[in-house]
């Protein structure tokens, strides 16, 4: 039972991550390699705040604001350029972020990680209570995404994705539209980070590496972008796929490698058979 609850909680966290990344990949048409960094900002900021005595929701809110503020660094540095520059800027941000986590020992405790992070106790701090709370948070994020994706704002961002010049000539503020949607995506990723930190009660830098960013991008590309279904399907599939390996009695030594091979295979097969992802509507190019 606990194993199932563990998977449910992971899917809730990763669905929130992929839904938020969808705003960058699906709506803006940019590939971001820094999403795990914003996830990490959420985890670390809220972990530190909660250890300082703040409650879960206060910490979650503040970490979201901090992540949104940091995202403006990426926006300012990259948004005047084309998509490939964006990938490089986000990669740089991700690498620098990881180095800071790893080396700023007085604050982040570096590779030792932060432990003893409290769990929210509204529905009890046991797994069923946590799964319920995270389900509600996930539902809230879905609700917010429905409103965002249906809004004129999303339509305008999409028009910028399709043709920057034409959108500008219709009066769209290209910079603000992109920066806002990336800030929202980062804030929501930070919410997932707070949830993750509270769930595990322990975090260290290895959860927020470039590899994690790439995993998030794969989730979004496998599931599909541009709508709500795609990212959620992607999170479910890519969380459950490696779990299936557990039942195949594969030795621990090769398990993680097979996991990576599976991710790669899933991506390649999908890009070949169905470039829009399993349930997406936008084909990333």
């Amino acid at each position, binding site marked *: 039972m606990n194993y199932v609850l563990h998977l449910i909680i992971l899917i809730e966290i990763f669905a929130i991550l992929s839904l938020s990344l969808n705003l960058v990949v699906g709506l803006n048409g940019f590939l971001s390699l820094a999403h795990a960094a914003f996830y990490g900002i959420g985890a670390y900021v809220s972990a530190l705040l909660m250890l300082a005595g703040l409650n879960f929701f206060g910490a979650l809110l503040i970490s979201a604001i901090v992540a949104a503020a940091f995202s403006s660094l990426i926006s300012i540095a990259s948004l005047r350029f084309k998509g490939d520059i964006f990938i490089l800027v986000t990669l740089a941000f991700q690498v620098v972020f990881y180095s800071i986590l790893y080396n700023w020992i007085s604050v982040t405790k570096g590779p030792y990680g932060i432990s003893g992070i409290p769990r929210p106790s509204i529905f009890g701090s046991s797994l069923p209570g946590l799964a319920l709370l995270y389900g509600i948070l996930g539902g809230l994020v879905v609700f917010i995404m429905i409103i*965002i994706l249906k*809004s*004129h704002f999303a339509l305008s961002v*999409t028009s910028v994705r399709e043709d920057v010049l*034409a959108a500008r000539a*219709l*009066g769209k503020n290209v910079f603000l539209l992109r920066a806002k949607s990336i800030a929202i995506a980062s804030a929501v990723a930070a919410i997932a980070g707070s949830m993750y930190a509270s769930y595990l009660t322990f975090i260290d830098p290895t959860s927020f590496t470039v590899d994690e960013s790439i995993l998030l991008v794969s989730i979004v590309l496998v599931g599909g972008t541009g709508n709500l279904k795609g990212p959620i399907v992607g999170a479910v599939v890519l969380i459950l796929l490696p779990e299936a390996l557990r039942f195949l009695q594969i030795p621990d030594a090769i398990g993680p490698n097979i996991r990576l091979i599976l991710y790669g295979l899933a991506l390649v097969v999908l890009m070949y058979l169905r470039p829009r992802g399993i349930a997406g509507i936008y*084909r990333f190019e």
Partner: protein
Amino acid sequence: MLALTNIGFRVNGHAIITDVTLTASYGEIVALIGPNGSGKTTLFNVINGFLRHTSGNIAIAGTRADNLTVEQRIALGVGRLWQDVRIFQKMSCLENLVVAVKNSPGEALWRAFVQPKKIKLAEKEAIDKAEQYLKLTGLIEKRNIEAENLSYGQQKLLAMCRLFMNDATILLLDEPYAGVSSVLFDRISALIEKMRKLNQCILIIEHNIALVQWVSQRMYAFDEGRIIAEGTPREVMGSIEVKEAYAGV
């Protein structure tokens, strides 16, 4: 209205546009003709604000616009039909039009959460207006189809409808007839005529001289970045300079 006075545009010492003085009033269709590379599209980019003129003055809707950004000029009513259309390929025809609405309340996300009714109303209004234009141009059945599936001429019609939705009043139409099958010429002419009836100020770049003579009230002929003739279509087409420029003498 639009008034250019002694506009010059130089790049690295090379004059691309020299001493262009031109006016266009509301309710008037003004054509710019001239061989390829004579500076017509560059002039549109200067009026649009994508390029900054190096001398002279621009007045848009009675406002001195020399130092205004692209966004500020668009707020004054400047709208553009691109030579290469630039519709939003992966968006439906309806979305292509609805997105063009300026200052839609739903553009501010907080309103989407706080004032959903107000936004619904505005969206409905926009959709109604868009459908009206889709009907007018015969695209209503393609309403929910991604715009990349339209023929080139249909894409041009869609891009022109976008200008109506954008409430643009000073229109820069860059070759509206080029690359369009002649079946659609009438529909494009009808849209241009509708723009004029809405009292908009219309500048057209066009190589199809026969068509544009018929559509426009006044003409400017360009060659090598200068105006070489201006007046009614009859006067311009009769001028010796224009004949020489087109004959390549």
